[in-house]
């Protein structure tokens, strides 16, 4: 009997172990995928909705840039491809923060080479961050406000980089993991800091192969990549089309294996219905919301009453119900993502203009404000927009039909991506413009830097000393609860004065063929785009 009992006991033990292993695997799907043995070869075919305005990520803030070029570069740190928001090294192998919190020392890995064969050293990292933090005249650095605490960057030897700060920063490490801060070779930057707007020279897992505007962007495997046996793929190729239906059709037909940004639920349903298990859909909340920049510097929106009227005229709660199915825009929130640790509590948010739950009351107030501002019969405005269907056009359609109810006639004017950036960001040539705020992680420095006077991301051209002060204070407040109060206060100032009107926060559907392995969709469509661990189980 004993042996039988023993066998039975063994079986139970094995079964228990199997259940335990299965539950661990289920709980950590990303880790499990990472542990699968990768297959070398194949070209990853992808689709993307726009052309990049330029190839320099330091100067751009669109998926159309970073998704194409991220595989070509290294960054100092990065978000863990399998564990957002954990930060891991990329070019940096280790780092140390001094007890005073104002000195950060990074060790650069040995053996990283740029695609021209030259080694990547601390001097390249310093030159790169000097360009980002203190760009030379004529060079745009749209995220420099996120580094106001940086006093100096030093490279005492080829493998050491030291960041010295003016105050301990709550967000520096997050900001150094930015996918936008790709490392450029110093020799090229010295010759022309704008070289990378039209050229590529990186040290990433893939080398630049070809780019045909409006058609394709291609990268080819870098055999000298510093991570052994990576990347798995021979290359990657993006097909460019602004039409959502074209991109969805490309996935359905197998001409493309993945759409990294988002596809609407209707397309996802149809693709799933047709392809079944051959397709995987990863749905995540997104660190981005679609809102509207209001030009505070020009009539009629230099009048706070008119600004408040347009934000009051948008019923966000209904918008979430209507737009989710067709665009993925769903959650009502302030300037930080609802559900994140920095989100404004719902009860506080609902006291602010545009977030009242009684839509009729909001409309009545909007009409009253318009009349008081001298527009009793409403007004006509132009809403500039990006010619990307999802979700720019659908969001605009909803806003326009909502505004008609308070007497505002808005003309939707779609622009090509570069023209949209130029009118919105560079020149301020607009009255209203669809301007999403999308960042690579839930970090107040990243999301709120745009509300500071003179920020390149301050499309609405407003200047409020209270915002400058609150932003500066929250950036140096290390205690989370205290920082949260300042973050909420800043959000209130923006929303009460309608400097900018947020719309809805986004949910992301990443649709790909099941043969695309080891890709984990993160809350941002800017991160985990290096593709170094992605592989194809079949061609």
């Amino acid at each position, binding site marked *: 009997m004993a042996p039988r009992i023993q066998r039975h006991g063994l079986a139970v033990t094995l079964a228990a172990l199997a259940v335990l292993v299965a539950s661990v695997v289920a709980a950590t799907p990303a880790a499990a995928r990472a542990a699968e043995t990768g297959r070398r070869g194949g070209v990853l075919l992808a689709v993307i909705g726009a052309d990049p305005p330029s190839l320099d990520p330091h100067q751009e803030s669109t998926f159309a840039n970073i998704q194409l070029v991220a595989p070509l570069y290294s960054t100092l740190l990065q978000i863990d491809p399998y564990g957002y928001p954990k930060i891991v090294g990329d070019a940096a192998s280790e780092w140390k923060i001094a007890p005073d919190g104002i000195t950060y020392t990074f060790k650069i890995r040995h053996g990283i080479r740029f695609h021209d064969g030259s080694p990547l050293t601390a001097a390249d990292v310093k030159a790169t961050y000097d360009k980002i933090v203190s760009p030379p005249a004529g060079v745009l650095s749209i995220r420099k406000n996120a580094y106001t605490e940086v006093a100096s960057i030093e490279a005492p030897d080829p493998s050491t980089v030291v960041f010295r700060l003016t105050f301990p920063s709550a967000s520096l490490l997050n900001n150094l993991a930015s996918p936008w801060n790709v490392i450029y070779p110093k020799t090229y930057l010295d010759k022309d800091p704008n070289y990378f707007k039209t050229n590529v020279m990186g040290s990433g897992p893939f080398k630049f192969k070809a780019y045909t505007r409006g058609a394709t962007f291609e990268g080819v495997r870098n055999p000298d990549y510093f991570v052994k046996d990576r990347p798995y793929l021979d290359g990657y190729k993006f097909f460019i089309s*602004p039409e*959502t239906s074209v991109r969805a059709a490309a996935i359905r037909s197998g001409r493309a294996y993945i759409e990294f940004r988002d596809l609407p639920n209707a397309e996802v349903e*149809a693709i799933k219905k047709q392809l079944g298990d051959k397709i995987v859909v990863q749905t995540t909340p997104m660190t981005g919301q679609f809102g509207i920049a209001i030009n505070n510097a020009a009539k009629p929106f230099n009048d706070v009453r008119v600004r408040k009227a347009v934000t009051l005229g948008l019923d966000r709660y209904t918008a979430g119900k209507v737009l989710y*199915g067709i665009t993925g825009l769903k959650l009502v929130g302030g300037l930080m993502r609802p559900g994140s640790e920095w989100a404004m509590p719902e009860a506080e948010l609902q006291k602010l203009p545009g977030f009242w739950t009684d839509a009729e009351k909001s409309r009545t107030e909007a009409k009253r404000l318009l009349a008081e501002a001298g527009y009793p019969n409403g007004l006509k405005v132009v809403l500039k*927009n990006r010619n990307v269907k999802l979700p720019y056009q659908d969001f605009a*359609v909803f806003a326009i039909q909502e505004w008609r109810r308070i007497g505002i006639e808005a003309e*939707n*004017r*779609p622009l090509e991506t570069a023209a949209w950036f130029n009118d919105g960001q560079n020149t301020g040539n607009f009255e209203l413009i669809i301007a999403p705020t999308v960042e690579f992680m839930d970090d107040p420095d990243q999301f709120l830097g745009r509300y500071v006077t003179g920020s390149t991301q301050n499309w609405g051209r407003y200047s409020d000393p209270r915002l400058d002060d609150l932003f500066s204070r929250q950036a140096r407040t290390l205690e989370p609860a205290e920082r949260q109060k300042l973050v909420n206060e800043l959000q209130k100032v923006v929303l009460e004065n309608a400097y900018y009107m947020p719309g809805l926060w986004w949910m992301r559907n990443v649709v790909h063929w099941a043969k695309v392995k080891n890709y984990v969709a993160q809350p941002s469509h800017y991160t985990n785009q290096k593709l170094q661990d992605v592989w194809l189980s079949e061609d």
Partner: protein
Amino acid sequence: MSAPYPLVHATASAPLGQRLTVAEEVLKFVRTKPLGAGGALIILGMMLVALFAEALAPYDPYRGDYGLQFARPSVDHWFGTDEFGRDVLSRVMYGARIALFVGFVASFAGCTLGGLLGVVSAYWGGKVDLILERLMDVLLAFPQLILALAIASILGPAVQNVVVAVAIPIIPRAARVVRATALSVKENPYVEAVQALGALRRRVVLRHIVPNVMAPYIIMLTAQLGGAILTEAALSYLGLGTAEPTPSWGLMLSGSAPSYAEKAPWIALFPGIAISLGVFGFNLFGDSLRDALDPKLRKT
């Protein structure tokens, strides 16, 4: 000295056919060209819908009923609703306005400008003719839609820009047809006679040549109308025409319609039918008008 031959004022004595009234002309057209009359009926219907869209459309074409997204065609919504819950029938009705506006204005502008250039080219001849004709060759070298696409992408998406983009490719086509007729008219004895009498060039062109090239001009005008509607639809379909939420047939076919082709085919179906019907109507009418106005065909 008296004249050797007495001057006699000759008068034509051939019997003139009885002049038909407008109603009789219309009836004759309907009797002899029933297909053309059908086309005219379609055009008339479109015009009435476009003119009285406010009264005829059951709903505001811009206003969505959020509880009724993707509603199937029903008694309340004959053509169903779209992804915002907007009534497709109302949007098709209002879409007729854009289609006809762009069609008429672009065809009229393109044919008129082209026709004038054709007359000038034919009458002045020489270097003027050479330069204008080479210019027309350049424009004709591009397919009509490709040229319209290029112009629209430069000007950006807006109704007035669509008119320009659709009108420009029509110019060389109208210029060629009118020039050919004007060249033959110019050689007629009555033109030579009035020139010999010392009439100003302006008078010769405006009083004697232009009226005689009106038949090909009108034929071109009607022939291009269908094409102009189609081009507007194509431009909007490709994102270079009118912008959302303007109800335009081409725009209704593009945008979200392909995404919802399986879930809600009516979103694309009805604007598609409207475009086909409109183009069909103009082509039928244009063909019949050409037959009616062509003297050779009239004789047979």
